[in-house]
């Protein structure tokens, strides 16, 4: 075991690197339920960061705030120098389309579209021609090992195949950050391994930062760092939070 492996996971890096995405003091309530209570987290270019925690700890709300899908009640989200929480909706929407990719537990592929059309969609929305979009989408499907499944609709694919198509769709535009919310939550261990290996390899090859939400330590082990969320607050260590209950 390396000497560094014995140290606890740092909350942020100490090498002076500037995070590509940084949240400070995020709070968010859904009605009476306070999902986030002063959560802070930093994501650096090219790293895979696992956010782990029990069900209901606020993981998904944190992802939604970081990806600009939900505005926090308090706190700031800074992406590449811009305050996401203050951007107008149109600009946010454009950012989400061009700079961010998102994968959910259930890939949320469009059931009526084939794997190729699902993967092409972000490119078509960005103005690419159908031919160019299909060509590029095909390359990404190949990269994720689902070449040959282009004509299948989500209902005709296994869970693992559908999730790899969802990954291809999330990465097809060359985003700077991919948000993955329990991407293997509905998969068996073998399919989970295939999806995570594909995601980790591709992210490292392309230098894409990944914010990986998971409650599974074996999935978190694909990440470079791990932070733990409990009752809406972030800690560098699970046990530290549990021990202070």
């Amino acid at each position, binding site marked *: 075991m*390396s000497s560094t492996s014995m140290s606890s996971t740092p909350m942020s890096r100490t090498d002076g690197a500037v995070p590509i995405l940084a949240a400070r003091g995020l709070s968010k309530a859904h009605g009476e339920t306070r999902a986030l209570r002063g959560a802070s987290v930093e994501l650096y270019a090219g790293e895979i960061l696992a956010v782990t925690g029990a069900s209901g700890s606020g993981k998904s709300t944190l992802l939604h705030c970081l990806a600009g899908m939900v505005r926090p009640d308090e706190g700031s989200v800074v992406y590449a120098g811009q305050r996401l929480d203050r951007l107008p909706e149109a600009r946010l929407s454009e950012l989400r389309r061009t700079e961010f990719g998102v994968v959910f537990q259930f890939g949320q592929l469009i059931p009526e579209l084939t794997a190729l059309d699902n993967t092409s969609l972000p490119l078509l929305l960005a103005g690419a021609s159908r031919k160019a979009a299909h060509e590029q989408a095909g390359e990404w499907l190949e990269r994720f090992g689902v070449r040959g499944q282009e004509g299948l609709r989500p209902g005709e694919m296994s869970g693992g195949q559908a999730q790899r198509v969802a990954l291809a769709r999330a990465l097809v535009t060359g985003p700077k950050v991919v948000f993955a919310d329990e991407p293997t939550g509905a998969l068996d261990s073998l399919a989970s391994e295939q999806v995570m290996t594909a995601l980790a390899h591709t992210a490292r090859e392309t230098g894409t930062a990944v914010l990986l939400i998971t409650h599974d330590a074996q999935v*978190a082990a694909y990440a470079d760092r791990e932070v733990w969320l409990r009752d809406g607050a972030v800690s560098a260590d699970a046990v530290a939070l549990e*021990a202070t209950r």
Partner: protein
Amino acid sequence: MSTRHILLGLLAGGPSHGYDLKRRHDERFPQARPLAYGQVYTTLQRLVRDGLAEVDGTDSDGGPERTLYRSTAEGAKELAGWAAEITPPAPFVTNEIFAKVVCAILAAAGPTPTPGPASTPVRISTADPASSADPDPDPVPMPVPAADPVPAADPARYLIAQRAAHMARMRELTAVKTAPGADLATVLSADYALNHLDADLRWMTTTAARLTTLTAEVDPT
């Protein structure tokens, strides 16, 4: 782990010499502690003594002469029996992490130990160390440095550090099994360790959440 049975398994495919058995063991069981040559030869001698293997001549293959061993019919029977034998599922729960947590609670609850001297008083002889004929009759006693305070046992802190070490090891094993070209034996052996470490992690998180109750149970005072 039964080295004698593993060697019998490796000999099942045909005669082999000690060096080759060691090499094949380390290939077949990646991530396992490599077999020591001494252990291989000692085990082979015991197998011969017990009639489970026998010498099958020598093989030089251009290098130094090596003794070839092969399994006997008795050895094959022994191997088949071992391979079919159910491994007792956790007959005793020996959990070092739990033992440390409990002992840390006991230590934290006990009286604070009085710091003794850090070590035997340091004395420095003024005599020439090279001259044994004239030993210094009265070494000058040096001041005894103040002993470091006895560190307080802290089960929560221990669990934090242990969890970080487990997670770091899981990251290493994940990198090993997902490296391009990793063979199936490597993947399966890493998976075995990952699943066990994962179970430990879940246990540690649950234990940390129950430390207050455990402390009250271990030390009712």
